[in-house]
């Protein structure tokens, strides 16, 4: 069974059909790309998948469960975690605490135990600190664990967002332009990390990317959106050579 399946997913803002009858099928373990020019509706798709926006039409199934109408908290608990195109870290918290927030729902600790640091608190906190450091290590952020998140350089902030999302132990990870603003070297490194995460954490990744070359290097399957509609989908190499796709991007990237 597909881990994520949308049928005729649509949303309208006033007269604007931002996403129109989108059918996405993502299998477990896939690294799937969602590409398209500016304003195509990619981020809007993420916002619907995570419950930020309610679709005006169509259905979303996660692992066979319909998640239409659920709120972001419920959806995260069901197994979707995301990053944001415009970085949204917990800026006044330390790097490690950002990740610990992600682990929050996996910690069983009553308010009373938290007030007095008794009972399960000590053991849980030790465990979660260790797990958070492990995760930071994957993203090469363990050296900055106690830095304020807002003091991190841009590229590291993007990585921290991924680490934080992974801490919620999702089945499906949504990355919104994870390499935006990074230099080519950082980008290449990040793509390696994303592949590593997919392979080692048994993760399924849906990734929005603007840069077609970059998508070609990492995603097995892609869907191209244009003006809210699916323009093409399939094997990455074929789709990227599709003349319609190239036309949609002309004047954009190349």
């Amino acid at each position, binding site marked *: 069974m597909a881990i994520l399946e949308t049928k005729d997913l649509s949303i309208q803002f006033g007269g604007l059909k931002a996403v129109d009858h989108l059918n996405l099928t993502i299998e477990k373990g896939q690294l799937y790309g969602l590409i398209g020019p500016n304003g195509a509706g990619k981020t809007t798709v993420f916002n619907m998948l995570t419950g930020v926006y309610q679709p005006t039409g169509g259905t979303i199934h996660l692992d066979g469960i319909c998640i239409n109408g659920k709120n972001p*908290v419920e959806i*995260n608990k069901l197994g979707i975690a995301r990053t944001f195109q415009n970085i949204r870290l917990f800026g006044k918290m330390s790097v490690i605490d950002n990740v*610990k927030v992600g682990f929050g729902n996996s910690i069983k600790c009553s308010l009373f135990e938290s007030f007095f640091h008794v009972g399960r608190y000590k053991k849980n906190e030790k465990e979660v600190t260790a797990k958070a450091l492990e995760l930071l290590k994957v993203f090469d952020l363990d050296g900055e664990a106690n830095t304020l998140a807002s003091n991190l350089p841009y590229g590291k902030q993007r990585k921290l967002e991924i680490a934080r999302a*992974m801490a919620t132990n999702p089945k499906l990870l949504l990355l919104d332009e994870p390499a935006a603003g990074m230099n080519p070297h950082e980008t290449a490194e990040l793509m390696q990390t994303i592949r590593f995460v997919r392979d080692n*954490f048994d993760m399924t990744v849906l990734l929005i990317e603007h840069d077609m070359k970059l998508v070609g290097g990492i995603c097995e399957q892609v869907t191209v959106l244009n003006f809210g509609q699916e323009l093409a989908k399939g094997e990455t190499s074929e789709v990227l050579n599709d003349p319609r796709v190239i036309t949609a991007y002309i004047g954009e990237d190349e």
Partner: protein
Amino acid sequence: MRKCEVTGVKKLTLSATAKDRYTTYGLVVLIAVAVQLFVSYGNASNSFKGLLVPTCVYVLAALSLNLVVGVSGELSLGQAGFMCIGAYVGATFSVITAESIASDAVRFTIAILLGGIVAGVFGFLIGIPVLRLRGDYLAIVTLAFGEIIKSVCGNLYLSADKNGLFVALDVKAKSAHAFDAATKVDYVNGALGINGIPRTSNIRVNEWAFVICMAVILIAVIVMLNFIDSKQGRAVMAARDNRIAAEAMGVNVTRSKMTAFVMSAFFAGVAGVLYAHNYNVLDTSNFDYNQSILILVFVVLGGMTKMRSVMISTIILYVLPEALRGLNKWRMLIYAIVLIAMMLINNSVAIKKLVEKIQAKFAKGAENKEGGAA
């Protein structure tokens, strides 16, 4: 779903937050001991002694407000209202049980808990509608609730006779009531407030008043800082820093904000209980919005981040005007200059960098010392 398994990370040191916590506890203990020594063995003036308990009350009130303003990131202007509830509940309890509970310590402890809990319950009830609002709206509505509480307490009549308790919000209802004159006792008397808070539970006359208050503050600070360094506390701060991201990470934002709000009301209530037991008579005149705003000033000028700096800022800003009384006409001018200076210090990038540098140095030193620890 599978668990993350990456090996190779072993180094675990005492978290930075834990170190920071102990610094704050140390500071509270240090102040308590130093001041108490001065009071017991030095030649502390009466006006100095008279300032001690009120200072503690404001410190606790400011700390409690910081849970909402600093930790939760919401602007609340109703703190004096919660103090008022705590003060009235605590004082009424002490008056009623003045004879039935023999031990002052027991009575006072129960009064503190009761005042805090009732204030916390009101915090919860007020929080239900109020926490749906954001920013300025929340400030306005909490301000209104504070005033309502004050006004209700100021019109409250509580008496008893052999037939039981009598409660009214209207003096006419009270005069219409047929009391048994022989056994009638008035506990709460409308605008006149509560009279005759038992002298034995009056902490002002207690030589150890300051230490008792500081002990309460220490417990409060421990609970607050423990909370901040827990899953629930991190959720509150996450919701403060970015609501949308917090929700996407599975944080129940409403519940988190409510937790912080109720805790804040609880400790404000406790501050109110301390306040009430410093006097023989209690009325509502000291619980208006000016008081809430004063407390907010302490918090904001304390930088809103660290409980420690809120504490220090409150001590400076509360004690200073009193200490400057001798300077008469210069007093308010100096006070204003201090306010402005603190504001500048809080917002100056250069000073922040300097502080960070110093902190980094200390952190490095500590790490080197702990080098061997695994």
